[in-house]
């Protein structure tokens, strides 16, 4: 029986019992050792050059045609503030503004954003990031966040929700913010942040 390293698989009253893990060290399959690390080059017709404005700045990137706007931001433009939570348009963590409309950036190919004007969480504060957008400050004040991972999407979605005028009541805010999941459960405080910011806008 090999020593176990899978500690604390169970968290119970007064005791954290390590599970024992019996593992045979036999190979699943024997594969060839790694080939030299050279890959087939990507054919030119599968690459595109995308020009777009991100946070007021002209950006150009050569991307694989399959690249989503989300992956363009996170993996190519060094803007990881926009989050990937599902890559399927179900969680809203990747919400950005494209030409002032909120979109799930995981559902848009980067090539579809040609000439678009994209605003991400990194571009929301004014004065080189010094002056927070009122909704960012309201999220801090109302504690509309816990782990923070859904927060950029919530904030971007909230900015659009206010601009759309969907803030007539807390119920209306809830409805129009329901594309952004928060698993920590900060919804009550998110609604308060948006409600206050909309009132003061």
């Amino acid at each position, binding site marked *: 029986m090999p020593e176990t390293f899978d500690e*604390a698989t169970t*968290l119970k009253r007064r005791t954290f019992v390590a599970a024992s893990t019996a593992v045979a060290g036999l190979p699943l*399959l024997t594969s060839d050792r790694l080939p030299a690390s050279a890959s087939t080059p990507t054919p030119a017709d599968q690459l595109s050059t995308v020009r777009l404005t991100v946070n007021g700045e002209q950006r150009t990137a050569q991307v694989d045609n399959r690249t989503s706007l989300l992956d363009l931001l996170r993996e190519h433009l060094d803007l990881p503030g926009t989050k990937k939570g599902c890559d399927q348009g179900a969680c809203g963590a990747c919400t950005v503004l494209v030409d002032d409309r909120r979109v799930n950036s995981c559902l848009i190919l980067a090539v579809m954003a040609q000439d678009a004007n994209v605003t991400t969480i990194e571009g929301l504060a004014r004065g080189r990031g010094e002056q927070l957008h009122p909704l960012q400050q309201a999220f801090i004040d109302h504690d509309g966040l816990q782990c*923070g991972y859904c927060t950029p999407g919530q904030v971007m979605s909230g900015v659009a929700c206010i601009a759309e005028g969907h803030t007539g009541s807390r119920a209306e805010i809830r409805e129009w913010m329901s594309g952004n999941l928060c698993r920590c459960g900060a919804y009550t405080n998110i609604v308060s942040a948006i409600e206050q910011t909309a009132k003061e806008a």
Partner: protein
Amino acid sequence: MATPVVGQRLSRVDARRKVTGAATYSAEHRVEGLLYGVIVNGTVARGTVSRISVDAALGHPGVLHILTDFGSLRLAHPVDRIAFYGQPIAVVVAETLEAATHGASLVEATYEQQAAVTDLDAPGIPSQTPADEPDYSRGDPAGALASAQVKVDLELTSARENHNPIELPSTIARWQGGQLTLWDKTQWSQGAARTVAGALGIAVGDVRVHNEFVGGGFGSGIQTYDHVRLAAFAAREVGKPVKVVLTRRQFYYGAGFRPASRHRIALGSSTAGRVNALAYDVRIENARYQSYTDGLTDLPQFLYGVPNTRTAYRVTPVDVHSPCSMRGPGVVLGNFALETAMDQLAHELAVDPVELRLRNEPTQDEVNRIPFSTRKLRECYETGARRFGWSRRHAEPGSRTDGDLLIGMGMATASYHNNRRDCSARARMHADGTAEVFAASADMGPGTTTSVMQVAADALGLPASAVTFRLGDSSYPTAPLHAAATTMASVGSAAHTTCNALRAEFIRRAVADPNSPLHGANPADVRVRDGRLETSGARDSYRDILRRAGLPSLDITGNWGPGDADSKISTYGYGAVFAEVSVDPLLGLVRVRRIFAAYDVGRVISPKLAHSQAIGGMVGGIGMALLEGTVTDHRDGRIVNASLADYLVPVNADDPDLDAAFINTEDPQADPIGVKGLGEITIVGVAPAIGNAVFNATGKRLTDLPIRPEALL
């Protein structure tokens, strides 16, 4: 005396970084020469891989390597055969994420398939008594049940649940010589370092794990799953840094889950509402390769003063991957059974549910026969009922309406053991009068970075702005896993103890230093505030002491541990949760209208963040009560709803305004800062309170979670 920093309604110290996108999560670290790894998952639940074809994938532009031989690795499950659907069979490494993803889709495997069973209710599958969960009994439960004047006997079930934090499991692995650095989404950096070292057969000292920001966990980041080990393995094999981020679909196979459960609970009571018998049998799904148990029997044994009690815990091993802890592990489901049965008993006795619980308050911990440290449960009931408006509840089910809707109120007790573990911390005072405190803890959302800072600031006599608590690095002093509501008591107490020692060291140096205005003073007379060390007549400061000593900083490392306190006192958090629901009788739709909970969790360090955690747990409880359930196709073991579109979690519109209050108290016997854990208890009473409210609205006793509309039609 300066205003204590503990108890102040501070905003979280990292909030600005989180709302501006400047908080860097595991997958987002910039690492030169990074490659992308994508895991290929097997598509049978039991068998072996007979052939795996990688040629098409290797020919795909951008694909560099495909790893299929994990034989040198130690994984949590067997590596020589397939033990569950979705088990990794290959890792495709490519120059881009797109190429790796596409390449992974081109890997083809054939299997020697064996008959698999993934359903814990399948006939003929034997259940087992886990070694760490022997049957429990006190008194004569069978006799007391048989002779009870009033009996309740319920069977209950719950579906499997997946944690689904919004951040996906993510790992970047980089080797430099024999040194491995991981940026990993883990709730326990030092556990991850040990597990990966063991998996790869290297020294734990050669692994360093960073996890400064953790995008939710709820238990899914405690264990170090395949993707972490495979990222480290792949990076070593290909000689370059590799990033592996699971897809949302892969999350359902790549991390554990809250196991599906089956319960039977019987209560025997006098007509006066004195419960004198309790029998509880519970069974959960398990993997075949690893035993998993959690706190299911805890509250049925402990919560009420029932003299005749027995519990029996069983597991049913099937061909699935292993469950793991999910918020309120086990305890929340054991409590669902117990509190549903108590509500039914109250109904049958025609006693108010709160009153029934008050009649069964124990005077000591009946399981261990030791006194409670603090148990302010009566205050929780009183505060919760008053602020919720419990007196407006109609005792007769189905008797209150709002238009076409049926309205109901329900309540449940909550409790969770106050887990504390040994923890170390290092405190460092800098020459500019600011301080840092270090421990290898994590902050997946409760606000540890803020709350431990608050404790440290008071111990050092510094304002909040002068103190930083640093976590998220396995090289920091040893801290327990960030789970099981352990962190505040353990890490907070270590910070408190260590900062007290650092403050004392400065006082010692000052009174011994002929050049200090405090020279010769009695150390006990020296007070520290705003970084100044003062007696009634003289004053020194951290800055001046360091300047005179010519030191850029002064460090001290300290430890705290609970010792054997748990053998002498019973320390638990408590709560009372009140819910109001509406039920549309035509559609079967349940909507939660309000939840209010009152908690005794000892001293509250950071009230603003504690409130967020309390209401956040309610959202998890709403999901558990009404929405969440993982569906397996038992023909092949595939999970049918492995996405956030099909696995329903509460959205904003599913939740009303939620609120909670804390009983003003502290538990000095539990730990030096008087706290009891908060993270887990916040979910423990929610689902039963909602279920009981549905009963009050409709008269239907629903015992299967989640409560879906079809159950009410």
